[in-house]
């Protein structure tokens, strides 16, 4: 199916949002060539940040132009500081910080979209900011 993905992403005029396979091992150079922005989702603990950092390096090797980290499930100012410190040390741009949000857990349990479940959820507000940021710098 990767040929389909590449064909679509390279030729459609629409905005594409691709939910990739977990880990970037399956991302081919051919597909990566057509992606202009890669957002790497990381949780605010060392192993997750390290994994994102490895993906970052891999994606750079594949030639993706804009690679940014999005921290998810932030529970405290300390979590935020952990992410900022790590990102600063590795010169990674943080495109967004999404708070830990029980509304997401609730939506997952019910098999619904968090935006439909709770449109005013804090996580949704953070993703709106992320969208603005992505659009602004496109």
């Amino acid at each position, binding site marked *: 199916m*990767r040929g*389909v*993905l590449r064909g679509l992403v390279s*030729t459609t005029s629409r905005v594409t*949002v691709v*939910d990739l396979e977990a880990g970037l091992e399956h991302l081919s150079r051919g597909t990566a060539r057509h992606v202009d922005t890669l957002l790497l989702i990381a949780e605010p603990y060392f192993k997750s940040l390290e994994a994102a950092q490895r993906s970052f390096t891999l994606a750079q090797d594949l030639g993706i132009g804009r690679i940014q980290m999005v921290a*998810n499930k932030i529970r405290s100012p300390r979590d935020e500081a952990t992410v900022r410190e790590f990102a600063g040390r590795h010169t990674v741009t943080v495109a967004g910080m999404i708070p830990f949000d029980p509304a997401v857990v609730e939506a*997952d349990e019910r098999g619904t979209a968090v*935006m439909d479940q709770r449109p005013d959820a804090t996580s949704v507000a953070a993703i709106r900011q992320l969208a603005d940021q992505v659009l602004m710098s496109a």
Partner: protein
Amino acid sequence: MKIAIGGKGGSGKTTVAGTLARVLAERGQQVVALDDDSNPNLAVTLGLPNSQAASLPAIPRDWLEERPDGEGGTRLELKVPAEDFIERFGQPVRQNLTLLVMGQPDHGGSG
């Protein structure tokens, strides 16, 4: 604009991808959300009911064509323009937002 969302399993990447696609569509962008995960569940985070998410159309192989990959092998590529493909196999989710599921390994037989 071509955005890809990556991350470890459990990081929340699918929630971010789905919600981001919804927000971009709300902002007036024409969005196609592509699920490339082999355990596809982007449909649910986009807000498609489970029943509908389970019955998304499979992509038959005859819409694909083997072409030389320039490295001595072949790869599968689309035979038709992307828009035709999206019209045919895309699942309309809401205004400005269409879902395509790529990651099911049994459809087409090529990983």
